[in-house]
């Protein structure tokens, strides 16, 4: 899967502190106050895998957290790779037009 260099450049070094599922939207909160909003295919529900937004086995509450090493994206799969070797896999609603990153002050940092 190809790296999303632009998004990697934005998120690298930030630590994901919370993954929040809000219906068909998943919000990843980072330690610097920034947020990444992802339009996902379905709402996250109870389960135990690290995949969010793809079906009933994808709980946001159990989503892995960590310091971002890089981002890969292909089609409707968005993978956030952490320094600890774990990956947060997100299923986007479509291949594009699904991801926004805003800084703490709501400034837009990245749009897909």
């Amino acid at each position: 899967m190809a790296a999303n260099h632009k998004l990697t450049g934005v998120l690298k070094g930030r630590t994901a502190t919370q993954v929040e599922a809000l219906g068909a939207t998943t919000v990843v909160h980072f330690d610097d106050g920034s947020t990444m909003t992802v339009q996902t295919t379905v709402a996250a529900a109870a389960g135990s895998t690290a995949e969010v937004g793809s079906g009933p086995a994808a709980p946001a509450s159990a989503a892995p957290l960590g310091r971002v090493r890089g981002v890969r994206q292909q089609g409707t799969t968005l993978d956030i790779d952490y320094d600890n070797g774990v990956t947060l896999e997100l299923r986007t609603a479509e291949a594009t037009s699904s991801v926004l990153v805003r800084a703490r002050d709501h400034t837009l940092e990245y749009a897909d």
Partner: protein
Amino acid sequence: MLRSIAPRPRDGIASVPDPGPPVWRWAGALAAAALISACQGGQGAPKGDPNGSAGAAAGAPTAGAPAPAAGRDQVGGGDVATAAGASRVGEPPAASGAPRLPQYAARTLDSLGNPAPLEPDPRLTPGDTLPVSTEDICVAGYSRKVRNVPAEVRREVYARYGVPSHRPGEYELDHLISLELGGSNSVRNLWPESHWTTPWNARVKDRLENRLHRDVCDGRLDLHTAQRAIATDWIAAYGQYMGRSAVRRPASGAR
């Protein structure tokens, strides 16, 4: 938002039967209309031409001569100037002295024989936006924060429009609602726009996009109004927001 996809007459130009897919507008439709008008004693370039007299200057036909398209047609990287008596690439030569309606007058083909639309198919490209505000788009450098269109999305858009291959530089994968107006990278907002069709092409649309962006950021125009205008009919929006006094010849790339 869907809009009528049937060809409709522009000012001073009669509708021309389109041998291609009915939902597409062809650069040559304007040329053919001017041709018919000229054969009937009509006048020069079609109205609404952002290039002023480009159409008339580039080869208005004379009565009795083989019927070239008004304006200059670009096929691939070559300039197929359509002076009276010249044949367009791929067309048989006209019989001497006999007026002949061009077989391909209602469409513009690129160098590989693909039709080059002037406007997107509203069923394929109705327009799509990101959830961004005027404040977002009016920050310097906003467009650079938007992801580049992925290769697989680019291929899909060209395939949807029946452009399986093309020479570099012939087309631009245009955002119908431009990035600087909050347009998205969704396939619903992308279409292959020619650099070579005249009078309407990618460079002309760029001027409209810049103008709308400026008007929005200066507070003269609502963002959603601008998005709707450019998505519904960018050529009509050009006339509305650029004004006839702002027309000029396109950039040198479109001959």
